[in-house]
């Protein structure tokens, strides 16, 4: 959001506030102009006396520069500024373009076109000097310049005829206002006694002189301003030129030949003691063709005017586009003048030339009764001083739409066009539509859209221009409707409850599954129930089994042996069968004291189950009579993974306070029962590092009992010598039990059932594979037969 700085207190306020929220000062900018508001005139001349000297000098220089530019602009063709008709402006544009070729008929129309290259070749200094010369009443120089200008040559007779007659008429205008002229003469009386001075002295003193003068003639001037409201500055340009060209020009012998010429005309006015009418009537000096004299043309007799000028002076029924703006400006000036009279404003402000109102109100007294129309487009035609072609002059007349113009307009005879051309041109239609479009253009006068044309269409609500209502009913073809009906039937069929088809309880697949399950249960149950020892056990030891018996034999009697339970209950059957022969042999031969440590949460309970299933804790003669707390200890669960293993290896009682041994080296052997290769690897790696750092552990054997799936991953450690022996799965356990003549353990009971189950599985898988192969061949054969 933008902020507005308060002009009074200097604090920022939101832009939506109209008054300062701190001091209440209005935040609306005085210079801002809103829609519907007329511009307010701000007089800065009140601040003029308090300006410093240097600023006054700067302002004075700016004024001089501005006046020079104004003088230069006055010499330029004013076609654009005065909003000439489009045709004339187009001619002006064509004149200024150097690249385009100028047709002969157009070059013949405008004499300015011929003189323009000459003026372009001249430097700007020469150009202004030419104007200075033109302002001087030197007939010889004027004649020379006319000789050098082709334009003057071509238009000389016409100009001499009608323009020489215009000037007396304009001078007559001054004579027709004797009362106002007397007032003006009284106003400028103090200037009569003052001789003309140099330009510099004049610049410094004219304001003081004006001030003194204003004090004397304040009242008359005020009356003059009341009698005639001030006109726009544009209207006074011609008056200044006229003053120079008429009687005032005769007194220009003392005029300094400097660039201050435009400012000095006022002094000259003041220095003229007698009315300038007489001198003006006696001698009408030649007028420069570049001098603007477009004001008092209304009083000129019709017989001395060219036709095109007559038409230009005729009051148009349709005001030019510039007329409204000038009207409101005139009205504003009138209002302002009336206000000035009421408050008796000082004269110096009215006479202040720096404010753009150089005594305009006073000079209007000369033309109080002969009020000229504002500077309109037709006046621009006087600049060309040419005889325009008929078609060009008719343009202005057609705009005027007067009866005279209709009488003088040429009637175009219709041309017989070919029938195909008449058929092609939609003239009437285009004209009607264009006229209707113009008629429909309404200018908004109120609200935020003020000034815009044709913002809201004229078409009333509900007219034919309103979009036709579109029916919401779906326009579907018969085919689409048939498809929709089919879809509806399908959806309706899905919503209708259907009776569940009676599925036969026994299908072929289900029968096959039940049959297989029955076969396995019956065969394996029978083998286990009977206690078969039919399947042979190999007496050949693998490499990883050869060192286990030696390790068991090397264990001292009644020495503590650590048994690590690192398997889950799901594999308890396999692990118990695999570990049974080793633990049974060890307990039977060396009577070690087992310390069970679990790295699995369920391992604590599985340890007791292991001792019970392998029959070690059973009383003699069925078991070995091991007692918990006497012959074996279950010290619980060791958390922490590898860190826990490391901590236990380094400080047994520090990690497991219920351990029977104080140091890990007290264990005669370590038996690892694992079904996870990762946990088995942790024990192997941590123990190997401890053996390398503790010489007392160098001879401590590590035996591994692994499941069939973990055995292959532990095999490399066995081959590397980090593990003295390993029993992997039931197969190795059965061999170990068979070779060592251990007590008949559970592994032997499992061996037949294990062998029978494997054989059945392999046979069934093979049979199923062949059945699928045969079924595939049959399906392909059937497909080939069907083609």
């Amino acid at each position, binding site marked *: 959001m933008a902020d507005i700085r308060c002009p009074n207190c200097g604090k920022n306020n939101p832009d939506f506030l109209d008054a300062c929220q701190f001091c209440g000062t209005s935040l609306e900018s005085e210079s801002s102009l809103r829609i519907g508001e007329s511009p307010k005139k701000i007089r800065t001349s009140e601040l003029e006396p308090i300006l410093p000297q240097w600023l006054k000098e700067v302002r004075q220089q700016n004024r001089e520069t501005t006046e020079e530019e104004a003088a230069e602009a006055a010499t330029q063709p004013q076609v654009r500024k005065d909003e000439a008709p489009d045709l004339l402006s187009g001619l002006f544009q064509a004149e200024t373009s150097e690249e385009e070729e100028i047709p002969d008929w157009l070059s013949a129309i405008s004499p300015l076109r011929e003189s323009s290259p000459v003026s372009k070749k001249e430097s700007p200094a020469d150009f202004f000097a030419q104007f200075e010369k033109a302002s001087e009443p030197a007939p010889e120089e004027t004649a020379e310049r006319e000789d050098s200008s082709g334009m003057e040559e071509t238009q000389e007779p016409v100009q001499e005829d009608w323009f020489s007659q215009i000037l007396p008429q304009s001078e007559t205008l001054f004579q027709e206002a004797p009362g106002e002229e007397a007032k003006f003469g009284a106003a400028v009386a103090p200037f009569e006694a003052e001789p003309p001075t140099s330009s510099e002295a004049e610049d410094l003193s004219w304001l003081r002189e004006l001030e003194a003068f204003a004090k004397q003639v304040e009242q008359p001037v005020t009356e003059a301003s009341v009698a005639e409201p001030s006109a726009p500055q544009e209207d006074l340009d011609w008056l200044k030129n006229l003053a120079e060209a008429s009687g005032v020009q005769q007194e220009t012998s003392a005029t300094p030949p400097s660039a201050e010429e435009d400012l000095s005309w006022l002094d000259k006015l003041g220095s003229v003691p007698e009315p300038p009418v007489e001198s003006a009537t006696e001698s009408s000096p030649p007028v420069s063709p570049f001098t603007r004299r477009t004001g008092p043309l209304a009083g000129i007799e019709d017989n001395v005017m060219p036709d095109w000028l007559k038409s230009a002076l005729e009051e148009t029924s349709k005001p030019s586009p510039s007329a409204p703006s000038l009207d409101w400006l005139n009205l504003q000036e009138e209002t302002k003048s009336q206000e000035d009279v009421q408050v008796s404003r000082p004269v110096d402000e009215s006479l202040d030339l720096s404010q753009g109102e150089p005594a305009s109100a006073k000079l209007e007294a000369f033309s109080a009764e002969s009020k000229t129309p504002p500077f309109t487009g037709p006046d621009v035609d006087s600049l060309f001083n040419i005889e325009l072609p008929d078609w060009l002059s008719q343009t202005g007349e057609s705009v005027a739409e007067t009866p005279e113009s209709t009488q003088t307009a040429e009637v175009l005879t219709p041309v017989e066009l070919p029938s195909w051309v008449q058929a092609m041109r939609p003239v009437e239609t285009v004209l009607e539509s264009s006229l209707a479009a113009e008629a429909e253009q309404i200018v908004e006068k109120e609200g935020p859209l003020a000034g815009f044309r044709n913002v809201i269409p004229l078409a009333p609500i509900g007219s034919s221009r309103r979009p036709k209502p579109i029916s919401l009913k779906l326009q579907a073809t018969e085919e689409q409707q048939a498809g929709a009906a089919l879809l509806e039937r399908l959806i309706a069929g899905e919503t209708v409850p259907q009776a569940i088809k009676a599925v036969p309880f026994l299908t072929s697949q289900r029968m096959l599954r039940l049959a297989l399950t029955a076969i396995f249960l019956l065969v394996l149950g029978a083998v286990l129930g009977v206690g078969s020892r039919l399947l042979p056990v190999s007496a050949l030891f693998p490499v990883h089994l050869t060192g286990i018996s030696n390790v068991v034999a090397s264990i001292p009697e009644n020495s503590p042996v650590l048994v690590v339970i690192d398997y889950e209950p799901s594999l308890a059957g396999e692990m118990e069968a695999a570990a049974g022969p080793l633990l049974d042999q060890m307990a039977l031969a060396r009577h070690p004291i087992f310390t069970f440590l679990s790295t699995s949460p369920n391992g604590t309970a599985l340890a007791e189950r292991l001792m019970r299933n392998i029959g070690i804790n059973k009383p003699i003669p069925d078991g070995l009579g091991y007692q918990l707390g006497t012959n074996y200890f279950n010290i619980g669960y060791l958390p922490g993974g590898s860190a826990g293993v490391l901590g236990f290896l380094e400080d047994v009682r520090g990690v497991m306070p219920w351990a029977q041994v104080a140091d890990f080296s007290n264990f005669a052997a370590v038996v690892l029962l694992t079904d996870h290769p990762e946990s088995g690897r942790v024990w192997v790696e941590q123990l190997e590092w401890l053996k390398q750092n503790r010489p007392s552990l160098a001879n401590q054997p590590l035996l591994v009992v692994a499941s069939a799936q973990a055995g292959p991953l532990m095999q490399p450690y066995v*081959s590397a010598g980090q593990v003295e022996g390993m029993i992997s799965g039931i197969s190795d356990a059965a061999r170990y039990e068979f070779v060592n003549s251990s007590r008949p353990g559970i592994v032997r009971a499992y061996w037949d059932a294990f062998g029978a189950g494997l054989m059945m599985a392999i046979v069934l898988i093979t049979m199923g594979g062949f059945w699928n192969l045969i079924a595939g061949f049959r399906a392909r054969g059937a497909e080939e037969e069907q083609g």
Partner: protein
Amino acid sequence: MSVLRVLTAAFAIASGIIVLLGYFLPVPTLMQLRSLLTDWAIILAGTAVLVGILNLVAVQMEKVRTGQKSGIYGALLVLALIVTFGFGLLLGPDDPLIQWTVDAIIVPVEASLMSLLTVTLIYASIRLLRRRADVMSVLFLLVALLFLSAVLFTAFSPALGDGLMDLVGMFSRGGTRGLLLGIALGTLLTGMRVLFGIDRPYGGN
């Protein structure tokens, strides 16, 4: 948050470096620090088990409280957990009641799940062979048949079975060694990344 992140990373890296240096340098101070950090890790790991149990109870109780479909199973799980935990804490793992619980519930259930997993894997492998018959599937079929034959012959003909197992074991041992080497290198790289702060499994992303 950035300060906490830096602190956690610094503490983790320092702990790893201390433990690693304690392995390689026989400095008593480093070894004591390593032992101290190891004890802390063990305690935290034991606590993590209890925290996991509490989380399990909380999740199941939430199911019961919100009346979800499996809420009854959650309630049964929490009840069994409390009873087992109480009896095991009071009676000890060698009590006949706890042993009955293990023999009658835990081991059969887990063994059944493992057996079911085995059958499922066999069935999936057969379906895979039926759907995609390429070189790898043929190779897998050959290895499976060879393994089954070795096991079968081990049961019925130990000599032939041992020969086949040695033949199969030659490839499996080679593959196993390569696998272990890969695991070791991966573990080393992971440890170095943690030490250098590249990986922050402790939540210091």
